[in-house]
């Protein structure tokens, strides 16, 4: 009996030991094997680089939001013709069917996750082991991206919560509440980020060779011009701001040459085979086969079956399916007849023919059925369509038209820049623009904006930056009129208000 007791005790002790000592260590050993941790970011420069690349991926994933905010509220796509059922979300935007109960871009369009990650890089990178030169250039780019995002948010909602530090710990919901910061302060932050970016870039205006898919000093300069024009017009900055804009844009213009210029052939700007060192591109969002291809414009295309019954001319041919056998989106957004006529009549404009094509029924009377946005159709690889066009955020045509705008607002002659744009569009026989009244100059600039940037997310911002009278002059008054001023900014949703009691609704909603 005694012997058995001993055996029993030994075994019990063994079990207990096994439990208490070995196991905690065994449990601690289990750490993720397939993901990068914060410790790695700080100790390994290659791991830190992944955050930098991730920032661009995030910027790319907001492409659709950037595009829709910048263009879908303009008159280009209002009440258009299309062959399938309407894309309800896009239709709400182009009809300005927006209210406190019908809120597009909830949760601030998802921008704050990008901002968290940009803030995180700004905070972590100085602690990493990255070489100083690389670190400064990359931080300069990140500041540029952050300025661009806050600028876009300012234009969209006016005042927004200002967050420049990544949140470290969350203990309860209360800790996360934050008021909307007044628009002026957001603008100060945007301008501060621009200056920080310029400072970190140093004096180098070189765009690195290869694909122009990273933010750079010229992009910051262009953004600065854009921002000061906005603050000059919309925030009372007046001539002081216009002058700053003009000065900074002049700096960019002075770089015009082999590496920075209008591409003679408009189609080359978007040609996926001509991405490296493309002189017109300042900064574009990158899309590549097997990495990411753009899905932003699916509703502006046409499906394979319908393509067999649609023609590009008022005749039985050429069939859409013959020209684009592998395009397979849907046709749920279009232009109305008036817009089609406005853009396609008059002298041949290479911008129009390389932006979209009108779709006709292939049987009599060959009725207009819609348009196909051809700018972003990528290339054919084997038997599939690869949507791999880069999406320009800023290109040299922006610089020229922003410059023209700055000059016009300062009461100066913008015809040189307008004519540079027209010459490329219409060829040598273009009708030169002659300086006129400020109003006429602005109208002429807006006309070029309309034709130059179809599908590039610029038109609505251009109207807004020109001044709200130009918005009302161009948008169907049934949908937007001076009576509904508040609608220029977007409302925030009930769930946003619920999740943050410190937020208040955008004025007017």
């Amino acid at each position, binding site marked *: 009996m005694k012997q*058995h007791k001993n055996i029993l005790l030994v075994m019990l002790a063994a079990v207990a030991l096994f*439990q208490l000592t070995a196991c905690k260590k065994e449990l601690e050993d289990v750490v993720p094997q397939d993901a990068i941790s914060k410790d790695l970011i700080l100790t390994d420069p290659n791991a830190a680089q992944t955050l930098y690349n991730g920032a661009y991926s995030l910027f790319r994933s907001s492409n659709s939001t950037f595009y829709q905010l910048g263009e879908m509220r303009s008159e280009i796509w209002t009440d258009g013709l299309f062959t399938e059922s309407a894309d309800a979300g896009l239709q709400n935007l182009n009809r300005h069917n927006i209210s406190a109960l019908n809120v597009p871009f909830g949760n601030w369009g998802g921008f704050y996750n990008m901002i968290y990650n940009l803030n995180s890089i700004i905070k972590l990178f100085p602690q990493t082991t990255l070489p100083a030169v690389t670190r400064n250039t990359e931080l300069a780019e990140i500041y540029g991206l952050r300025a661009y995002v806050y600028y876009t948010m300012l234009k969209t909602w006016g005042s927004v919560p200002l967050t420049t530090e990544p949140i470290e710990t969350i203990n309860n919901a209360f800790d996360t509440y934050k008021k909307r910061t007044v628009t002026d302060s957001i603008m100060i932050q945007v301008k501060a980020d621009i200056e920080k970016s310029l400072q970190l870039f140093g004096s180098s205006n070189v765009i690195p060779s290869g694909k122009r898919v990273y933010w750079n000093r010229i992009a910051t300069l262009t953004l600065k011009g854009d921002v000061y024009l906005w603050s000059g017009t919309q925030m009372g900055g007046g001539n002081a701001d216009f002058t700053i804009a003009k000065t900074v844009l002049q700096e960019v213009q002075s770089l015009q040459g082999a590496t920075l210029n209008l591409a003679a052939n408009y189609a080359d700007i978007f040609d996926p085979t001509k991405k490296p060192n493309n002189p017109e591109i300042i900064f574009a969002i990158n899309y590549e086969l097997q990495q990411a291809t753009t899905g932003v414009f699916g509703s502006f295309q046409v499906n394979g*079956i319908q393509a067999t019954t649609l023609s590009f001319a008022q005749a039985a041919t050429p069939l859409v399916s013959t020209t684009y056998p592998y395009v397979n989106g849907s046709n749920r957004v279009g232009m109305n007849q008036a817009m089609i006529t406005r853009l396609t009549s008059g002298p041949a404009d290479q911008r129009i023919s390389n932006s979209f094509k009108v779709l006709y029924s292939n049987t009599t009377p060959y009725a207009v059925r819609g348009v196909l946005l051809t700018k972003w159709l990528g290339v054919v690889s084997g038997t599939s369509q690869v949507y791999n066009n880069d999406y320009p955020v800023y290109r040299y045509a922006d610089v020229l038209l922003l410059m023209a705008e700055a000059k016009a607002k300062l009461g100066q002659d913008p015809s040189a820049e307008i004519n540079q744009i027209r010459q490329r569009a219409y060829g040598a026989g273009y009708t030169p623009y002659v300086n006129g009244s400020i109003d006429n100059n602005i109208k002429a600039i807006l006309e070029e904006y309309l034709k130059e940037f179809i599908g590039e997310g610029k038109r609505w911002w251009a109207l807004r930056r020109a001044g709200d009278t130009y918005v009302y002059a161009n948008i169907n008054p049934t949908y937007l009129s001076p009576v509904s001023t508040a609608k220029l900014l977007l409302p925030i949703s009930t769930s946003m208000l619920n999740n943050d009691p410190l937020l208040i609704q955008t004025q007017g909603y």
Partner: protein
Amino acid sequence: MNLPKLKSLLLASCFFLFATAMAQTKKVSGRVLSDEDAKPISGVSVMLKGKTTGTQTTINGDFSITASKGDVLVFSFIGYTSQEVKLGTANNLVIEMKISTSKLDEVVVIGYGTQKRKELTGAVSTVNSLAFEHSPSSNVFTALQGTVPGLRVFQSTGQPGTSPSLAFRGGTNFNGTGTPLFVVDGMITATLFGLDMNDIASIDLLKDAASTAIYGARAANGVVLVTTKKGKLGKTQVTYSISNTTNYIRPNSSEYLNGADYIRMNRSGLRARYLGDSLDNNTNNMNTDKGQLTGSWGWALSSGWISPAGLYTTQLVSNQNRKYLTDPNWKLLLDRNPFIQGQTDSILYRDLGVKEREALILRQENTIAHNLNFSGATEQGNFALSIGAVSDNGIILDSKMKRFNMNFNGGLNVGKNIKITTTITAYTTTQALPYNDPAGGATGGLLQRFIGVAPTVRYNNDTSWAQIPGPNDITLGNPLIWSKLYSNSTDQQRFLGGLNLEYTIKPYLKFLVGASGYYLYTTNNYFTKAYQQGNDGAFNTTRSASFNNTKDIQYTTNAFLQFNKNFKGHSITALAGGEFYEFKRYVSSGVGQGAPTDLIPWLTAITAPSVFNGSIVNPSSASSNFSGWERMASAIGRVNYSYQNKYLLTAIVRYDGSSRLNKDNFYGLFPGVSAGWNLHNENFYEKSGFTKYVSSIKPRLSYGVNGNNSSLGYFSTAQTYNNAGTYNGVGGTYAASYINPNVRWERTNSFNLGIDLGFLKNRISLNFDYFIRNVFDKLSSLGISAQTGFTGFSTNLGQLQNRGFELELNAKVIAPQKADGISLDMGATFYTVKSYAIKLPFNGLPGNMQSTFQVWDPNNPGKLMQVNGLVEGQRIGLDEVWAPRYAGIYTSQDLITKDANVYNSFLPYNNKKIKQLGDARWQLVNANDTMDSRQFVYVGRTIPQFTGSFYANAGFKGFHLYAAFDYAIGFVINNNEILRGLSQVQGSQNGTTDILKTWSPENPNGTLPRYYWANQGRNFATDASGNNTPANLWEKGDYIMLREVTLSYNLSQSKINKYLKDKIKGISVYITGSNLSYLTKYSGNFPEEGGIDNGKYPLPRRLTIGAKITL
């Protein structure tokens, strides 16, 4: 069966017991032994049949009685089958009585051991073995459907081998889901998939937390314990069973429009849309509508349809096609032009009916199953080896599952004190599914899509009659083409094994040690041949190929000391020990494309890397990952105590450490205690006259705590960065969500009050359980301000409560008087549960409500209320359906004028007050307000309120007839085959004949609202995608399913001996019908899952013929 019938059967059976006769007398003596161990039984009642004289056996099992030749002696004793013996000349008898396994004597598996049901204090259900004895299902899960109260099981696809959905006692999630832990022969497995029904000896379900506490942190949703067959003492035997099942098509339940009505109604619907847009003065839209008449729709006159291989056949009569007017394959429709007054269009089309279409995709198939079992046992050891093969073919074209499986159970006694047992099971399965059911709301389900393809579709070339693909989508296209394009198969191999050693140190003390584990390999291979993208479409020669291999490795080791002693009426069994568990998952996958031929469906045939736009493009890529890793270390203890078989007590404690959590939160303590009282063993009760009626009463009470870590990921507290994709050739990462390092596992405590009752000598047994389960520290997503970069984060803040009760009734309505006498067993189960949100994360809103939806309160005019979500203290409303209801339709202009100012925010027009004749007249809960989502009314819940089953099993002379039903009551379902047709949100799809019941100028007596092409009038959904269908068209899903009827016959031993000598020990044959019929008012054919029924892959009706031979 109703109550009076039951009573009369009981009376009839009593009558036989007491029928009498008279004869000459003599002294007869003998001894009664148990047939199991040949030990004498004392206290057996020995009666002369039909007379009042009788006696009882002594402690040695002896008896003596005065009787006459020809008398019949009736031997009866609780727990044994009564026996009748006709007296011959012999005066000394030896009677062997057979044990009748009454519910109370059965052994129940309770995790790390077994217990007799009569000693049980927790809530444990045992699955009626009849449910899996003859079932042709290749998935053991289906045996759980309705058979164990507390577990809701429903099937949502007829795909062979697919596991049904399970939810235990209201689940631990707010949406009512929660899957139990599965333990097969003591080994924790992720699923019961792959097990052979033939190998199952028993299935038990641990329900209350006091019982499940033995599995601690993983057991919050109950534990399903499966035991496979072991060898039994006696001569080695070989059993072969075979079954052949015919799987019959369960045809589509709805009538669809024929080609003529389809074209006519869509054109009329387009006109309705055009009229709406004209009331809205929207010229652009009116022009778009006009264009649709020649658009790319199945009913439209598109120029593309004239081609002999165009997508649809609809076309105007012209000189080119005039020849078809006399062709029987073509039909002519004269229909007025919707836009040009007075013009009639002559439309030619081909009409492919629903029956022909069903025949293309559904077919009657067979399932064949073989099982060969060798088993035996001696004093030294026991073994059971079984080998099985199943080929299960589904009713949807080419869907199948094949399985080979083996199961080995062995036990060896080494010397006197050591016993070794081992279990080894393995299976390999192949599942093929050329047709994936999209089952989604927006896309619709497979059958809704396929059966609803336009009847004018062209699957054959007009002139060559060759098969052509039809629409460019597998769920819409010609099955003769599309079913051959994809190869999509999933193979799985699992090797599961365990070794247990039991060392008896002293008679009362044992040392138990065990090790078990499994390897599970899952391989998915996918290949697409070159194909034409629909009729007249481009050829796609991408030939993409991919694979995904997952390797799971899991092992568990444990060691226990078990103490067992009885003294002075006290009985104690105690168990203490520890366990270590590890799980790892590795995933490798690859994709490739560009093979030059369809003949090599593997990645080897892909094209070489090439340069594309200046960068190297590989048409193939591979990835590998160590994606899952988990360890658990546990200490386990259990004490079972009973005093004089009256007072029962069980206490369990488990201390678990899990690697899923942060270091500081590794460990959790999970105790459970339960008590029971065998009231019927008390002297005062035995003396009371009550025993005659209520033979056993056992109240039970239990309380316990469980954990739940299944809602946590493997590395839920680790700060890591997610993959952000590749940018310009370089990979990126980002923080996608805020990782809360402090999350803990959810804790569930549950209180269980139960009673087990036995009536009339335990002929009828009733088990009742009432439970309250609280899920504390519920992992919930707490909404936070979006400015943080995140919209929410996971935290332990909620509390959920489930309250419900379960009932299980079993009755031996007719007990067999002798071995092959008449018997009738019946049983029923009933289960109901309700879930409440007790505590929710603070968010500053009344009741901290979450995911709610605002509607007008019908009882408080002008007040809004929050429904359809979570509000503290209220019943969970996530499964509620709220929808708009129409009070009628506008049948006259007067009605429209009256409502001229009613604003319908759902209308796509600029003027949202537009109404046309025939439009739905929406019920406004808050009158004088706009029609919007606040006007929605309550329709019902999608989760059934009551579920259960009932069965009857009758036997006579070797024949058995078994019938089993299961039911679900109190839920709503939406037949989307009908609704998607009525709303026509897919443009070309055909709909059911309900469309003919819609109001139109031609059908002014129509009862349903006006039919619009693409739901422009928003009469059948609030948007153009088919969401929020009217309350009027939701249906009750209540059903009773005749799950199984089996007639089996066991050849009697005497006949076998007579004809087959000793060569064969037993033969049984059976015929089984499964999934026979739903008794339901629901219009669809598959009501098991509430909510939106998108036309699922239906369950086949099955007829099985099987045989079992024992050598």
